[in-house]
């Protein structure tokens, strides 16, 4: 899956914003109603709408509760001390942060610190993920539980892990019987897409 498609899914998240215009009737969207908009009064809308209005200078986005330096600091500590993956404050934490910081960095308090923290969290989790994938494959497991991993994190190991397991399976079956079918025919690789997204997503502020 292309990372941009996961970003697309992340854009469904609800977010609070303060419009600077009035629109007194409710807007009936297929995915649900929004409005009425009253200048100065906070209202919850889907992220894609908030970003669109922000780009047109029609609103101010309120920082989501979880996007707070102290809370993220705590989360980072928890993630560091835990052997397992901890529950993230939001299931699309990296994508939402990236989108907000790109479009509405002036509305976010301490944007730079948040950027670094989220990037740290991501790096920590990805390296944890890589080492657990390594252990998993080496242990010859056939089933894995991936609780608390976000969609983007899962996607980052998609080009590698399932394919590797399929390959192992095929080799095993091949050695079991000679009339083995070619199981590796339907793999399209997206390794490059994922990698480029990672490096493009949140460049660490040190760079």
């Amino acid at each position: 899956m292309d990372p941009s498609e996961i970003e697309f899914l992340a854009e469904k998240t609800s977010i609070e914003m303060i419009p600077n215009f009035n629109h007194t009737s409710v807007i009936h969207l297929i995915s649900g109603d929004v409005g009425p908009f009253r200048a100065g009064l906070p209202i919850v809308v889907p992220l894609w709408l908030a970003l669109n209005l922000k780009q047109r200078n029609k609103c101010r986005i309120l920082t989501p509760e979880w996007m707070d330096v102290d809370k993220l600091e705590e989360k980072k500590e928890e993630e560091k001390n835990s052997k397992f993956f901890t529950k993230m404050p939001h299931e699309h934490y990296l994508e939402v942060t990236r989108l907000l910081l790109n479009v509405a960095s002036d509305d976010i308090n301490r944007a730079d610190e948040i950027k670094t923290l989220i990037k740290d969290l991501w790096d920590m989790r990805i390296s944890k993920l890589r080492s657990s994938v390594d252990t998993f494959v080496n242990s010859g497991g056939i089933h894995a539980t991936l609780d608390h991993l976000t969609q983007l994190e899962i996607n980052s190991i998609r080009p590698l892990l399932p394919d590797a397991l399929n390959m192992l399976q095929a080799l095993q079956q091949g050695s079991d019987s000679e009339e083995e079918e070619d199981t590796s025919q339907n793999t399209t690789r997206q390794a490059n897409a994922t990698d480029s997204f990672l490096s493009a997503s949140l460049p660490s502020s040190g760079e």
Partner: protein
Amino acid sequence: MSNADLSELERELLETEHLDENEEQLTAQNVLDVLEKAWLNEKFSPEILPHKSEYVECMLEQIKFMESNINLLQSTDIQVEIYRFELERIRFIITSYLRCRLKKIEQFASYILDQEKDRNVDERYLSESELKFAMEFVQHLDTHFNSVLKEMPWNLQTIEPANKNIKPNMNSYVFLRSNKTVSNVIVKDVFENRDEDVELLENSQHLLPYSCIANYVKEKSVQLL
């Protein structure tokens, strides 16, 4: 038309929409939800899944209806762009979903057709137009093979039908989230030749071979990720 007329029209428009809302709003939202899940499942499952053409049709109808409504609004109205934006998003999901299915049909055409033969009309996995597409595709492929093979040395002029029949790898690994607790999922361990019992707790995420959860995907107990 004067300005007053326009705003009158707009109000009527909103009112009619509002009437529909009470009956249709929930369903339109549900339909979108179903399509979105179907899109993700289709993307990640190795085989083609039962079609959702009735939902696709319904959503396309809805889009058409919304579009004709939008055209009645003043173009400066802030709603216009918001409506358009949402429709674009929905259209993206639908096209991506249909394209994904077409890709699978092209890849596994003859295998899929073989399977469809054994299914009743209402249990078919392909929609009517997809079925037509698949049949034509296989036909063209055969014509193409025949014309090319004629030019080959005599000992290479035939292709075993079995070699043309590409099957999806049903055992390929997929990521999934369980919508409800599913117990007794049997995972075959090909390495040690034994079965393992796995329980999928509600909302837990797993990596499993597709074959052991294929039915749960179709009955919506699990969602592929």
